[in-house]
């Protein structure tokens, strides 16, 4: 199961955080900070998996992350998820964002938080991977957008 999905930039500013388990406000911030410290220390040419973070659950949990330009995408998962599978999921997520925003950048995440969350909701639902096929995801998101637009026009 996926426990949390975090996106932050090179300075540790959170750009998106989604927790699939309940933590208190403070703990959430602490998790983000700790994760950033763990991830930011690592070189470019080392592997994308990290163990040993203490805040979420302890030894059973792993961080799987990817670094794109200015952003870190981090998934906290337990041992029932496959590492490579999640790594692929991050790639799919980023590619989908890229398609939806046409050349996604950090600012898109800031100004369209709701859209990003909606895309994420099509991929991961309640901590479970729902869909890994980019075309499917985009179709879903598009149909929802279309419906909203039509409502706005008629309304």
């Amino acid at each position, binding site marked *: 199961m996926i426990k949390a999905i975090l996106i932050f930039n090179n300075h540790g*500013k*959170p750009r*998106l*955080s*989604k927790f*699939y388990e*309940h933590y208190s*406000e403070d703990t*959430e*911030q602490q998790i983000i900070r700790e994760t950033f410290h763990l991830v930011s220390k*690592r*070189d470019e*040419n*080392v*592997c*994308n*998996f*990290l*163990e*040993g973070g203490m805040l979420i659950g302890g*030894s059973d949990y792993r961080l799987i992350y990817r670094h794109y330009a200015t952003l870190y995408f981090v998934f906290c998962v337990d041992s*029932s998820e*496959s*590492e*490579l*599978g999640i*790594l*692929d999921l991050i790639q799919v997520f980023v590619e989908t964002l890229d398609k939806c925003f046409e050349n996604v950048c950090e600012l898109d995440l*800031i100004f369209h*938080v*709701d859209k990003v*969350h*909606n895309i994420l*909701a099509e991929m991961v*639902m*309640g901590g*479970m*991977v*729902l*869909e*890994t*096929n980019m*075309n*499917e995801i985009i179709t*879903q998101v598009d*149909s*929802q957008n279309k*419906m*909203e637009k039509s*409502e*706005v026009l008629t*309304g």
Partner: protein
Amino acid sequence: MKELMVRAIYCEMLGYEASFSYIHAIKLAQQGTALEKRVGYLAVSLFLNESHELLLLLVNTVLKDLQSTNLIEVCMALTVVSQMFPKDMIPAILPLVEEKLNHPKEIIRRKAVLALYKFYLIAPNQVQHIHNKFRKALCDKDPGVMTASLHIYLQMIQENPEGYKDLTTSFVTILKQVVGGKLPMDFNYHSVPAPWLQIQLLRILLFCSTIFLCRDVAALCIHCYCIQPLSSFPAILYESAKCIGNFVLSLKINLKYLGLKALTYVVQQHPKLALQHQMTIIECLDHPDLIIKRETLELLFRITNAQNVSVIVEKMLDPFLKIMLCCCIIYTLFIVLILFSYEEYTYAPDNEWFIETMSTVFSVGGDMMQPDIPNSFLKLLSEGFDSVEEDRKLRLFAVDSYVSLLQGEPGKLPQRFLQVISWVLGEYSYLREELEAATVLRLLAKLLDMKSTSSETKSWVLMAMTKLCEGGAGVSVTQEVCETYGSSLDTVLRQRAQELQHLSQDCELRARVLPRGAGLEPLEVDSSLSFLDGFVSEALAAGAAPYKAPHQRQEELAQAKALSLEPYGLSLPISMSSCSIADRQSPTLLSVSSGLSTTLKLDGVKRVWGREGYLSEREPVEESAHVEVPSPLQSPSQQGEADSSQSQTLTPIPTPQPEQEKQQLASSLFVGLGSQSSVCLMGKSESTTQRFRRKAKDLAVSSLEQTSQLSQGPAAANGICDVELTGSDMSETSPTLIRDNGVVAADPAPHEDPDKLKDLCLRTHLPAEFSGLCHSEITPLCTNQTLDFSACHLQKEDSLALVVFIYNSSDSDIQEILLELDSDELEVSCVCDSPVQEARSHSVAVCQYSLTVKRPSVHVEVVGTASYQFPAGTPHSAQFSYKLPLTSFIRPLTVSTEEYGAMWLDFSHDTKQKLTLISDGQEPLTDTLNVLKKKLQLHVVEIIGMEGIVACRLLRDQPCLMHCRLHAGTLSVWLRSPVPDLPDCLMYHCQRALQEH
């Protein structure tokens, strides 16, 4: 509004609380247009959690949206439901979500499946009846829905592998279809068809534990790193090891990581497989990535054995210094195991090495180390080994090195280490005769004066000083210390200082309290404090109030309050004699007399190391089978060590210097893994094999003798049943039983139906006080080569007894079987005198436990571990679990209707559900209640027209009330209890009982 909400989300993410906007988010979800609704739902799912009270306001909205014709609204509702939904509200929306399983749109079906999975996770009882629908989802024509349903099955099969055996074939079919490329192209990932789906399926199959895995699946399996499920099939393992090699060699760092992980799994099963990869592993050790390094160390740790331990430890200590902060916990784990390896003594090269290594570990690991590591180290020191001389040397060396450490700069040492040092000095410094006690005392006093020393350490130091203060020279130092700490604010320190003062002045008393070198003798602590009985009765006679345990006092306090929650005296009456006194322990007595040895415990540590090395290597057959396996890298390097010039000429291209070093390292690391006949660096393997052989021969001879004895004796035919009655419980059994036993044994039946016979046999071993009670079927728990464990439970009026039988089928007695039972939901207490049992050859030992419920659950489980040792010396352990339904703990509760009415209002936890009625008779209500009464042991209080009231209690005294009413052909049941979860669990059992009828 929408824009504002998005901003509130952003604020919340940055860590500023935006609770004022929560209610608006809910309003937005409720009232807005589709666009606004979506933002509203999103905000709700980010802001609130399952237990938030505002969530109740959302339930109606969700209900409305689930019924909507608009696909997107349904989707949104399902998403929010799966993110968070209050547990008590699930019944309200469950039918709607179920309905969505048949929705024509696959996206809706898929989301509904996941939502149901979420329900299953938070409230498994309520989703019981829709298992069939899950099956339909598994066979859905859309692969997405099928994938989603796999999540559920993985979970359910993990919990109950037996129940889903029939589905194995469908899983295999699905897997074959996936591998055969029957899925749409979209699912391919780098031209492998749906790898993640395959992993999921393989995991499920692993739990189904059937061997349907064919070769091609196996190959794929490795590609996806799913090596874990494979580890039970050795034939495939050897092939897989080759593939893993490629992984580890891979330049892609992620693959390297996975390869190492896989190799670790494999090596656990077959250490020899690591030989193929030794050079790769060595390279990984020097890898710049810490995570890779860590994995490598873990791998090395798995192959540790007698001959390579020192090299491996050295390697570990090096990065230990560097990345201590990163993963200290893992390392301390290593160290613990090194400790145990030393305990076996054949392992560590010598005393000096051991003490020095441990010193490094302590000073580096410092205070981040778990407290049991120093404890087990001290235990090791105090218990010693076989030879007295060796013990003395070890302790002497420890004293020497610690004194020199203290003479250096003790301020830098971590607290834990100081505690260890002071204990060792206190206990053993007398061994070094030329060392005066006063010198040690002065060193210790110096520790006390340091600012950084914590008060815990100080009390350790004072303890040590108490042991040392003997006569003459030390007096001035001790006096000074006593004066300083005699008035300390810390009560523990003050106590220690007082002890020190008194004992230093009174030599005789000191000799009695702290006899030298006697830290090991087990101390008998009178935990019932019977010597105080006189004092207590005197005080009672003088009018003092009897002692009350803290929880009793609290309950009374609660009762005294005006708004009492449980006014009906259901609090258990605790007899003073049994509970209150026994639970108390005299702190002074314990602390003075026992020293430290009572706090050292080694329980629960798995025995991974045996005298012959890593325990999985025990079988001699395997050893001999691999004698011929050449280890390609090892042999040249070893030759090189034997005669370096010759090896230079033998190899056509001379290996460069660093390469050679690595090879040397490799040979020292992997020594002992390969064939036993190979040249051994430390010259120890020869002796071990010899010893091992001799032992095996001895065993064979003795067993031969025993069998011959058996065949001579007339009783040989009924050897299985000719059991001696052992244990105190058994002595009460009447002699007629024994005769019965004899009759059974004489019967020729044993050869035809051994199981039944065994059951009969065991039944005769039930303790006498249970003879009248009905007991459950005796179920086998687990079977070892020599020991059979089985158990049954008995329902007594006021308790539930669990009886574990241990049947020893071997020819030798097994002593000291330590049985430990534990459970999340139950409280387990042993009725026997001691948890240690002895099983004589071909006889049965019986352990008795009494169980009470801590936390109600539909099924409760007791997990047990038995550790035992053969006379020959190798320790074993067996694990088993025993499952009982909650109904075994239910007893009727006899109350009158008035009492019932009064109790009803006081209970806070309730649940309601409609149950099917048994309608074959004239009076459906009475019939149904009678069935429940019979099956669940309920007490029917009264039946008035269409309504009935029933009462029961959960052992010991947790009441649960049930109110039933006939309504439109069904029985609506309302359960109430002061205990959370109890109504839910009981409802489940009622449902089952009626279904079974």
